[in-house]
């Protein structure tokens, strides 16, 4: 009997997933170490889309930085606009008129819907079902039309101003918004029928990349990623700002309905349900919006007092915080931007250990990352 030949030497393979890859939602680079299809280690390498936003903020005055916040999260420009305005107003202790606050909430929630639609669409496209993506785009177009009506822009809005918003809602805007809400609400059920409870889809997502509530908190996850783990933390409720306390809405949390609590499916479902809650907020806001001016009296040369402030708002991708330090001049001395997607990348390596390559795509999709937020 001949001796058994030496087993063939095997070694792990290192694969670069990205920066150019269809499913990394931009120029994210993930260095995968794989054993066949099993990923032993996935390290995200961020920085390919560094915009230098924080440095730019120091070189511009407070209102000049407003258009740059659009680029921070280009799928939720309105939310970033408003968050910047709220942060600067908190620093300078300015109150925007109530109508402006209502308009800000309306655009924020509309933008949350359109952002979640893209998230839903690109996530399902990552899972191999391309059709729902275009259904999401169909509704997003209508939101974009509304924004175009309001401020002339469809992607980078530059709508908020320090002390208000750039312009009042044109005649017919609120009616159009109502029409959109009536049209949109049944569509959420359509998405659920189309894909959410599809057996293959659920199998792909259930029990994948489970994040426990403790872990989620420890790693600083915010937004739908945190709520997907069952932590009912929403800045609109827990640290209310603007006119949010006036509205009745629920905080959506993951329920583990198809697998363990905190898996990819829960994070996906939180976003779907949040769209419903946004519709609820929008209906109330559109009904209650008062008449009045949309800009407060703000001096032409705007110089906030010396001081520092941290303001955070609930964006579609989690907490969007601005830490502003003012030295009394027209430019911020320091503007630190806290973005949900960047913090989410911390836990990426931990949850992806031992998954398959196809699951990596699912995890990236379920985190709903956006690259300018990661790299800023």
């Amino acid at each position: 009997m001949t001796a058994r030949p030496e087993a063939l030497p095997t070694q792990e393979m290192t694969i670069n997933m990205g920066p150019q890859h269809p499913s990394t939602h931009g120029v994210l680079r993930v260095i995968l170490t794989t054993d066949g299809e099993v990923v032993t280690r996935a390290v995200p390498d961020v920085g390919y889309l560094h915009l230098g936003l924080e440095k730019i903020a120091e070189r511009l005055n407070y209102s000049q930085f407003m258009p740059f916040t659009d680029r921070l999260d280009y799928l939720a420009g309105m939310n970033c606009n408003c968050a910047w305005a709220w942060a600067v107003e908190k620093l300078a202790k300015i109150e925007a008129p109530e109508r402006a606050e209502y308009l800000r909430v309306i655009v924020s929630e509309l933008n949350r819907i359109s952002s979640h639609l893209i998230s839903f669409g690109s996530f399902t496209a990552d899972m191999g079902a391309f059709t729902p993506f275009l259904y999401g785009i169909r509704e997003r177009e209508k939101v974009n039309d509304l924004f175009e009506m309001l401020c002339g822009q469809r992607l980078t809005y530059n709508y908020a101003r320090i002390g208000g918003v750039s312009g009042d809602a044109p005649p017919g805007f609120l009616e159009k918004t109502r029409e959109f809400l009536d049209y949109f609400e049944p569509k959420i059920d359509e998405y659920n029928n189309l894909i959410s409870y599809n057996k293959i889809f659920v199998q792909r997502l259930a029990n994948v990349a489970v994040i426990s509530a403790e872990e989620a908190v420890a790693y600083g996850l915010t937004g739908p990623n945190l709520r997907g783990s069952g932590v009912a933390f929403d800045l609109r409720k827990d640290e209310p700002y603007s006119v949010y306390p006036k509205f009745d809405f629920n905080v959506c949390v993951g329920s583990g309905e198809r697998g363990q609590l905190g898996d990819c499916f829960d994070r996906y479902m939180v976003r779907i349900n949040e769209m419903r809650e946004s519709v609820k907020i929008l209906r109330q806001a559109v009904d209650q919006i008062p008449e009045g001016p949309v800009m407060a009296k703000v001096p032409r040369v705007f110089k906030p007092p010396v001081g520092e402030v941290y303001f955070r708002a609930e964006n579609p991708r989690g907490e969007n915080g601005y830490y502003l330090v003012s030295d009394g001049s027209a430019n911020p001395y320091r503007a630190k931007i806290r973005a949900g997607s960047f913090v989410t990348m911390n836990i990426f390596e931990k949850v992806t250990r031992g998954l398959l390559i196809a699951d990596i795509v699912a995890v990236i999709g379920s985190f709903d990352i956006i690259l300018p937020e990661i790299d800023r």
Partner: protein
Amino acid sequence: MEALAISLIKAVPFLGAVPVWAVALVLMVAVAAVVLAFALTFEGVGSLVLRKVAGDIQVRIGPNRVGPNGVLQFLADGVKLILKEDLTPASADRPLFKMAPYFVFVGSFAGFVVVPFGVGLIAADLNIGVYYVMAVSSLVVIGILLAGWSSNNKWALLGGMRGAAQIISYEIPVGLALIPAVMIAGSLSLQDIVRSQGGLWGIFGWNLFHNPFTFFSFFLYFTAAQAETNQTPFDLPEAESELVSGYNVEYSGIRFGYFFLAEFGDMFVVAALTTALFLGGWNIPFFHAETLPWIWGNLLSLGVFLGKAFTIVLIMMWVRWTLPRIRVDQLMRLSWKYLIPLTFFNLLGVSLWLLVFNGKGIPAMIASLFG
């Protein structure tokens, strides 16, 4: 082919001087050209229909620029694929890289040879037709594996490995799901199998309705064949969102075109086999195609066959644009833990049925009740 050549020599006087083999050879080339022309046309038009269907399902318009309503889009695509530079990566294994698309294309195209398009319309009525299709379609594995390996690209390699594992795993359930039709007809020739389904108004003779097991077998075959030909939801070897483009990621120009054509060719072969094996093939409902005059019988049966096959193709496209993709471990589990035992059980069921009821199907039994 030889018989046809001899009859042709007898019919046309001046051919008498030409040896039989030469006439047969010319005939073979002619038939091959016709089949190739059909395959290429189908693949072109198929790609257009696929995109139109996709547009319809995805609430958009689809191609509408080239020609009236975009109907010439496939020609534009074809011209583009031919004219584009055919790149070979510097670190690729050149001979293998250049060879791989032909394996895939031949594997899919060779299946067309035994497709029974009509009463007399078949390129070669092999007495091992079903077996032959199984054999040549395995050639695709070699092509995919070669493409993945020779590209010297890790994504392509993963795609090639997935392709090999998948196609080999799913050939077993495909084979097992085909056997019921073969057993009922008692022949491996696709023409014989189609003829065996001719009884009872041409619809209830279908193997689909023969007995509960064959009914089930149809769905098993359809699922497994989808997987064997890498159609969604089993398109893992070319999973765009995971492997960028899978095994063909490094290919460009007409070499990519071959993969593309092969994909549509596979689609048609699966649809044609499904039609021939379970849906009565070219049998015209309420008629016996063989009793009609040669030209009418063939034209009608061709129409019926293509109608059925294209319906199946449309269903495949519908599935493709509806379902997400399953994961590689789930794919393997589906094959080895569910499809193979099920097809095996099914085969056992059909065998017992044929034994107990002496080869009679349910419709035939019902018919005999009423005399």
